[in-house]
């Protein structure tokens, strides 16, 4: 065991896999010197500049070339510098990375991991505070993974690299270094597509992921003081969503709120409410609700406090649902 931040845990996962698999390469903007968040720190020195390297500044190229590498036997992990800069690559992701397996009827695989930091709360410029997971989750052919702790980040990243399907791996930048955790030093994986019950409870189910898990935990402590027993589910995987975990929990509690930073409309929250209806309609005691960002651009630092979801707000919404 070793105490790690999420940055370190991901770095460690990449290190383990680079060491194990000669066909794995990592590249992207500034990846050679470790990337702007230092996630790839030290890897170029250790594995050489043909395996860990800087690319030209062009996201479509980064992702498109990764697909080419993947169909010809390499296993590329690419870093896009921020979530806001995934969009120049959106066409390559949607039209090719997500589709080559089906288009070639399984002849070519696309074992590509596309990783990038996302989310708000870091006082950043525009395009550096967004949560676009729903956009990727609506694209058939992708899996979308989001860790909420260093431990999960490592296990999910290794699983993502070992998966033969293309993975969108979104890293909640706000908690990159905000928490440390004991993490096993060796290799381990966590199953893709399975949620984790962070805490059991009986009155209401709170579903969240990424940086929101911590905020929910704080809110749950408030709820506990108010005598409310909350079950907290960390999705871990946005696509596929763990329908069974939702079913089991909501059938038990009869109430659900979804907490996610992204714009509320057409969000993960919307999807989970649909699932709760499909899977647990007769058990619902209050309307399942989504607590999300506004349908506005994420504001710059001075306005961001309004946009971010505070534990207090989550507590407030728990209360509303409990007292429906």
């Amino acid at each position: 065991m070793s105490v790690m931040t999420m940055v370190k845990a991901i770095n460690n996962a990449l290190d383990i896999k680079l060491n194990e698999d000669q066909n794995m390469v990592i590249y992207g903007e500034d990846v050679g010197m470790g990337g702007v968040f230092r996630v790839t720190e030290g890897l170029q020195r250790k594995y050489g500049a043909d395996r860990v390297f800087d690319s030209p500044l062009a996201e479509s190229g980064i992702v498109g070339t990764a697909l080419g590498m993947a169909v010809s036997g390499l296993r590329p992990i690419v870093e896009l510098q921020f979530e806001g800069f995934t969009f120049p690559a959106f066409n390559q992701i949607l039209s090719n990375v997500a589709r080559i397996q089906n288009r070639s009827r399984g002849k070519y695989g696309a074992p590509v991991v596309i990783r990038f930091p996302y989310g708000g709360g870091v006082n950043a410029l525009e395009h550096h505070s967004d949560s676009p997971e729903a956009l990727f989750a609506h694209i058939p052919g992708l899996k979308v993974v989001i860790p909420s702790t260093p431990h999960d980040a490592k296990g999910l990243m290794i699983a993502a690299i070992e998966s033969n399907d293309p993975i969108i791996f979104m890293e909640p930048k706000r908690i990159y270094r905000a928490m440390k955790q004991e993490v096993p030093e060796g290799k381990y994986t966590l199953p893709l597509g399975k949620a984790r019950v962070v805490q059991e409870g009986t009155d209401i189910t709170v579903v969240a992921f990424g940086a929101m898990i911590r905020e929910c935990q704080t809110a749950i402590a408030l709820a506990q003081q108010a005598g409310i027993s909350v079950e907290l589910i960390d999705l871990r995987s946005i696509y596929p969503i763990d329908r069974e975990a939702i079913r089991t929990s909501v059938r038990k509690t009869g109430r659900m709120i979804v907490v996610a930073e992204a714009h509320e409309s057409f969000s993960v929250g919307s999807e989970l409410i649909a699932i709760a209806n499909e899977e647990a309609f007769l058990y619902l005691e209050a309307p399942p609700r989504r607590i999300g960002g506004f349908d506005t651009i994420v504001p710059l630092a001075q306005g961001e406090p309004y946009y971010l979801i505070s534990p207090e707000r989550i507590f407030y919404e728990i209360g509303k649902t409990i007292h429906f």
Partner: protein
Amino acid sequence: MAHDNLPAIFHHFHPIEDKMLQIIDNEGNVIDKKRMPELDDEIIIDAYKQMLYERIADEMAVSYQRQGRMYTYTPNIGQEAIHIAAGMHIRGEDWLVPAFREMGTLLAKGVTMKEIFLFYLGNEHGGSFRNIRNVLPMAISIGTQFHHAVGIGYAVKYQKKEEVVFTFIGDGGTSEGDFSEALNFAGVWQVPVIFTVQNNQYAISVPVQKQTRSVNLAVKSVAFGIPGIKVDGNDFFAMYLAYQIAVDYARSGRGAVLIEALTYRLGAHTTSDDPSKYRNEAEEQLWGKSDPLLRLKRYMQSAGIRAIDEEQLREQYREEIDRQFADAEQEKSYPLSDLFDHMYTDMPDELRRQKSEYEQFLSWKEKRR
């Protein structure tokens, strides 16, 4: 751009001067003897036969479509010299990353007409080219394929293989960001990729003059530090030589090459297009004189190469193609599982659920009858 050992031809035909590599003229006369590739008669005859086969396959495909037996189709008519010249240089282990208008090269790689027809009959199994190594499916989203070619080039280099990657795009496609980005990556990474721009003068209805103001398309290589050359794409020998040099350059680890093949789309863009809306017959006739089959045939005649019985060949090819089309038409089974099976290597429960719900609907429907 440190071009160690840049073959002299790239200097001589530096695209900035807008010269074009051409070996035979429209009448089939050799106008650049020095550069004429030394080819056995049998090879030339074979090239002509392949071009003829592609031409006939196209004509028949168009007519199947007219008969309502096929959905849409994108004919290659007029561009065969490019495809066959490339096909004569591509090796079994080389990669082909097509756009959607290079049938002859697909055939050279070993793809069958049946597969191509199956694709246009609306079945993905046709587009996957299952049995042929190192051919990607056709690229519908224009420009994106160039990045795939570069990525493959990187893998080839990383794995210290000697493979070369052939990729294609149209004149219109050169306007897409991916085209430029990919040439740039190829320059920086020095990968063994041969980029061919088939400049057939039109992107659907838009003439190349509205596509770019550059002096030609080969010159775009200059922006990315790779050698480029403009070649008469209707001149089989010029294309043959260009690929010979490019393949040698790429295979020996010197990097990528951009070839502009100047040609003309003698047919419609697709079977749903009507060129008379945007170009005139005079232009079509003018370019018709440069038909690559015609030119090669004239050369063969004047060079005294053994005559082939073209009528008999045509007949033979027609039968063969008809057989392949019939085969493709018969293969109409498309099980529900085809939609789901190749989405992931490991199918998520969510897809299983959707499939089984749909099966419930199907059995309800069955019962209702």
